[in-house]
């Protein structure tokens, strides 16, 4: 191809040609040719550039996807961690709210109480009792009432150990609490648990006028339970024609199954 030019003069010739072309470029003589070449090649270059960009985008997407998977995994772990943390904080908040309500009630009534955390439940399905993390070392004794919220009674201490205690909830069949209904005649009765399902108030005089929505509170007849603790609200009444008493079914004002913190009222020594 280039045999007509000797190699050494060729390099000098080409260098001279370049210098000439530089001159022609800067004198704008070469510019129209340059523009023409660029114009002719532009469509081809555009297509190739577009293809190159697509290939690069594909590569970027492929590598980014890997990054996204890693980021997603990291974020999922973070979400899980925060969910657990959030749940723990909600529990703490809930506990604080419970404690706060109970503290308000105690401050208002002048009663003393021991705040205890629920650490477990009796595994027997027919028994409704909870295990508390406080016991006789903190002054808890048998039959001390348990309250939650704003003075709602939920049970009584049934067993006490040095550092723990068990409380029978008011919906347990073993529970019996002397109550009065907040009506005109202050109807008396006894609330017993109905197999963990509901509360039944018995021994209500047939002459007393009670209605749904009336509130039952502790009567104060039991030496270890003060008067005025809310036990529940009447939601159904039955009265047999020949019976001497009428019966009412109560609904507790709190969800007894979801307790986390309770107050054990510290009653004076008998």
């Amino acid at each position, binding site marked *: *191809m*280039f045999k007509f030019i000797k190699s050494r003069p060729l*390099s000098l010739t080409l*260098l001279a040609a*370049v210098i000439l*072309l530089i001159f022609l470029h800067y004198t704008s003589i070469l510019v129209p040719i*340059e523009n023409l070449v660029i114009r002719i090649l532009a469509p081809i270059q555009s297509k190739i550039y577009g*293809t*190159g960009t697509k290939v690069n985008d594909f*590569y970027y997407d492929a590598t980014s996807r890997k990054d996204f998977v890693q980021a997603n995994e990291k974020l999922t772990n973070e979400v899980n961690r925060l969910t657990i943390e959030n749940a723990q904080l909600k529990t703490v908040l809930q506990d604080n709210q419970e404690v706060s309500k109970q503290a308000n009630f105690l401050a208002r009534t002048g009663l003393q109480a021991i705040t205890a955390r629920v650490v477990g439940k009796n595994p027997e399905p027919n028994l409704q009792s909870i295990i508390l993390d406080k016991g006789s070392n903190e002054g808890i004794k048998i039959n001390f009432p348990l309250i939650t919220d704003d003075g709602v009674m939920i049970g009584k201490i049934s067993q006490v150990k040095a550092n723990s205690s068990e409380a029978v909830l008011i919906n347990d069949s073993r529970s019996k609490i002397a109550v009065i209904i907040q009506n005109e005649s202050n109807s008396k009765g006894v609330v017993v648990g109905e197999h963990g399902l509901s509360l039944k108030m018995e021994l209500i005089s047939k002459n007393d006028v009670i209605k749904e929505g009336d509130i039952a509170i502790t009567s104060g007849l039991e030496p270890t339970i003060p008067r005025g603790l809310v036990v529940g609200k009447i939601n159904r009444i039955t009265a047999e024609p020949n019976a001497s008493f009428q019966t009412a079914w109560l609904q507790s004002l709190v969800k007894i199954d979801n307790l986390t913190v309770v107050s054990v009222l510290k009653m004076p020594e008998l």
Partner: protein
Amino acid sequence: MIEIIFNIVGIFVVGIVQVSLLTTWPPPVSSLNLILSLVIFLAVIVNYQKGLWWALGAGLFLELYSAYSFGTTTLSLLAVVILINFLFSNLFTNRSLYSLLILGFIGTLSYNLFILFFNALALISGSSSYFLIFDFWSQFFWQPLFNTLILAIIFFTFHISTGRLKNIFLFPSNAYENKSQR
């Protein structure tokens, strides 16, 4: 004549690939200088004259899209071809893969130095207001590395396509062309 047209088309194709395709790749792969690699390959493995002509043609093509002063790229390519020919004639004895890779590496480094030199010259002479760009890793690490790699690929492709793979690691200096012709 046909060979000349073939070479001109080749220069355009490689130039377009360099300008429009390789530049779209992510760094540091985009620092690959295919034209420089081909020019070095031609100058070392095929023949010196062809390397010079390709340096001129490809250099002029790149000038159309270059941000440097006109002539910088072409002069640098020509200078590289002259330099590696000098090194090849005086320090190397054969057209082996090793010679090509070493010369490719040296050629790429020197190409960037020539670019810097001609740029500085243009700047001093006032023909360019363009400031010097100096990216050490891209110019003196990645580009030599990728150019050397692509030279190895070109070398193998060339020898596979020409059926001369058996002696790829040690070609006698007169395997294709007698050195005296150079």
